[in-house]
């Protein structure tokens, strides 16, 4: 029963208010892409024990999609941020590095 702060409405939303959307920052591959690219886009998902970036929707709240950085092992949340970005913002990266010095960085 996670608590995630919706970056749009500022509410600390309980998991029952949220809908999960899988891995964040996927790059869409459409017509013209190679089989390998399309396969990676459609099926290949990271499954890290540790730092992970995820999509969540404040489905029973403001309805907005947002992104969350959290640790899959401890459920520690490093931050949430709006979905309109292709990579995690610097302040989130810094916070993760401070908490997880061994983290290899967003790739």
């Amino acid at each position, binding site marked *: 029963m996670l608590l995630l702060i919706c970056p749009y409405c500022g509410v600390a939303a309980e998991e029952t208010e949220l809908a999960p*959307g899988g891995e964040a920052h996927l790059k869409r591959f*459409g017509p013209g892409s190679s089989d390998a690219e399309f396969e990676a*886009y*459609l099926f290949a998902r990271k499954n890290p024990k540790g730092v992970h970036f995820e999509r969540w*929707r404040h*489905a029973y709240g403001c309805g907005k999609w947002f992104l969350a950085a959290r640790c899959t092992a401890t*459920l*520690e949340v490093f931050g949430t941020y709006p979905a309109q970005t292709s990579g995690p913002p610097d302040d989130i990266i810094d916070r993760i590095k401070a908490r997880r010095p061994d983290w290899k960085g967003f790739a």
Partner: protein
Amino acid sequence: MSIRLTSGGRLIDRSAPIDFTFNGKHLRGFAGDTLASALLANGQMLVGRSFKYHRPRGIVASGAEEPNALVNLGQGARAEPNQRATTTELFDGLQARSQNHWPSLEFDVGVLNNYAARLLPGGFYYKTFIHPRAAWKHLFEPIIRQTAGLGAAPKDRDADRYEQVYAFCDLLVVGGGVAGLHAALVAARAGARVWLVEQSAHWGGRAPVDGDMIDALPAADWVNATVAELAGMANVTLRARTMAAGVYDHGYVLLDERLADHTPGDGRPRHRLWRMRAARIIAATGAIERPLSFAGNDVPGVMLASALRDYLVNWAVSPGQRTVVVTNNDDAYRTAIALHQAGQTVVAVIDARDQADGALPAQARALGIRVETGKAIARVKGGKHVTGVEVCRQTGDGTISRFLACNAVAMSGGWSPVVHLYSHCGGKLIWDEAGAMFRPDAAHPPITQDGSAMVIGAGAANGALREAIADADAQVRIALKAVGIKPKKSAVPRQDLPDEAALQPVWIMPQAAGVGLRAKVWLDYQNDVKVSDVQLAAREGYGSVEHAKRYTTLGMATDQGKISNINGLAVLAEALNEPVPQVGTTTFRPPYTPVPLGALAGEARGEIFQPLRKTPMDGWHAAQGATFEPVGLWRRPYCYPRPGETPRQAVAREVKNTRQALGLLDASTLGKIIVKGPDAGRFLDMLYTNVMSSLPVGRCRYGLMCNEQGFLSDDGVMARIDDDTWLCHTTSGGADRIHGWMEDWLQCEWWDWQVFTANVTEHYAQIAVVGPNARKLLERLGGMEVSQDALPFMAWADGSLAGFGCRVYRISFSGELSYEIAVPASQGAAFWQACHDAGASLGAMPYGTEALHVMRAEKGFIMIGDETDGTVTPQDLGLDWAVSKKKADFLGKRGQERSHLTSPDRWKLVGFETLDGSVIPEGAYVIAQGSNANGQRHVQGRVTSTYRSPTLGRGIAMGLLLRGPERMGEVVSFNTVDGSTVQARVVGPVFYDRDGEKQNV
């Protein structure tokens, strides 16, 4: 025999007698009794039979950890099995029955298992019931099910109600002993929002029983003063009878409050489940005493030393007038002293340690109590109750040195902190050598969302068995600091406690007990697991503690091994020749004690189990006696049977009437999503497989949506409202999902596109007017031009009908002349009635979803969820015409280019006509030659929609068939459940009005 003493008992009110029954026998207790104390007061030592060997069992403990005294409580609609007598507060008229025996508690046939114990070793089930394989299902399982299980499951519907409440706090303190009370007080004085919960009905925990002094006050007085101060503070919530069942992620805690267990039927909810979010949790849950492992330690009358003390002090009950105390620590001497002070005889204290020179043993000796050091109990004598113990040297093999006659044994193997709440979310434990116990490892706590400790142990639960208040004081300050609250400086209340010498870990008594003794040493009372079973598991390779648990059932069932786990682990460690922390513990999982399913369900039962969506016309349907079916969360009329009609006859009538005269359908559930903005056309071209941006204003177009894999996900009719506005109709069950899907792409992928969406499904009531008389009805209603010229097929127009402002779509899902009319939801019922009134002489009848399905199947129209199952492409369904070849991109286009989806060998949509006119069973497969490795027939297709067509008078079906469209005219076979086959000819999927003339008039 156990008796009630004539004086004493701090919790009972002798002026308030209470009558209850046990196995039908009328007994009497006092207000303040638990069922356990009342049973003991009535001399009822024997309270149940053990699970496997049906051995006589008595009360061992005085709280939630009790493994033996489980009873069936209540009757009929208030029957509940496996209730712990030790936590059941006595009330007038309580009815309890003991469990797991036949024909009676006193004489039980199952006890034969006891004498066959050598044939029932650990892992017995796994070893015995493997061969022959068929015997498990037909022979062994039925027999085991008959004899297994503890209480009887209730048969009636639960008469009680339950409720759930959300709550929030800065600090949740679990445990109302002195540590929890002090922690709550420090936090409350600092201004924190504090909750303090206690599982029993009383505050103070063990301290008042043990006669502790706090700040020079008797503990009971200190407790009363502290509770009074807390109760007077607005930022404090106190809840007794409330058990913290589990700690979950990010400070979520379930609290089970037993509101009316002790006052059944008084109108209050029986339990209230608090769904708590706590910023920090203090686990001041105390500690549980461990039994000692000696032969016969399960004979009724053998009890935990602390429990015996509780019965004596709290309820003035003496389980035996001649008691032997057996211990490895100083604490148990408190029991000896308490017995002596209550005028009971302490035969001896058998202390496994070579020396016992602490303050408490000294006090006991001074009272004249015999203390024997370096000694052990070799064996307890007695069957249904203790008659004596055989004493031996702890370091020996059990050679008997003396027999002591007694009728109760108080045992203490030390204390185990209650670390459950600390462990539920991943907190780690460390092994404390001095206390021979696992306690919370503050360096590895369960953490919350910011990475800091979520649960903090305090007092005995943190391993501070003695200076509990001082530890709680330190821990609550850490917790408050973490949530940004500054505690006030204050002196720590001083606990005045006698010094205690170290305990000596004793896992088997005597140390070198032979096999004969070990096979009578119980570790887990509830599951009948003995020392010999755990040793056998170790020998057979179950070295992992989790494996050994499952192999032997140690620590399972309703008590989850609260008193047995540590002893079991230690025995396993010894057998494996490994240190205890190396072996580790099994995983602690919620709930701490069982929570009734009723409490977990709360109010979500009966008609409010799930919200029901109703259309504006729902009341009319119900008044007509419609048969309803669920569609998503909606309920829709399936058909409207007339008196004497079966549903099938009603459907046939509705179909025929619609085809021949006039049918009215409540289509309000249809999804309606407005897509608007400068980039709306571009967006819809990405979402739909065909082109929507080119749709002229005033026109409608059927469209398909696919997921990125290229598989169909939804369909519906699009209407272009104005230059930058489109209205998408989705399936009834798909509106919310498709709206979410649109938002996902707009917010997360094309966030620079200027598009708004709005799900307006419930804003409009929609009525389909269908059949040859449809236009006549609209003309009668009057108000707008609905002719073929003014409103041709696949056009829409705004206007009014019979004075109702409406939007009329000329679309058809039945193949008939058809209009779908949307009016504001508030006017839906009135407009629906107006249609029926004006249409009566035109033969208007309502029709339900089944007639809708039959008519669309007659026309070969697909239905999302029937023809599609998430693996079907538009091309599979012959809908290539609705998939744009010109568009550079749309969702699913790349997916559809994959080689498997472009293969000519796909199963494709065709129609099937049975040769004999029968209806192909739903779910039937088209069989092919040969079978697979499992002996199952190969298949080459399946039916997706199959109905009896009232129009054609025979069975019709659609389905997917390998290279189907190339095989027109071929006869194929469908399997059926009874093993026979149905022959059908492959035909086109459109059975009725192939040229589509009827809808376009």
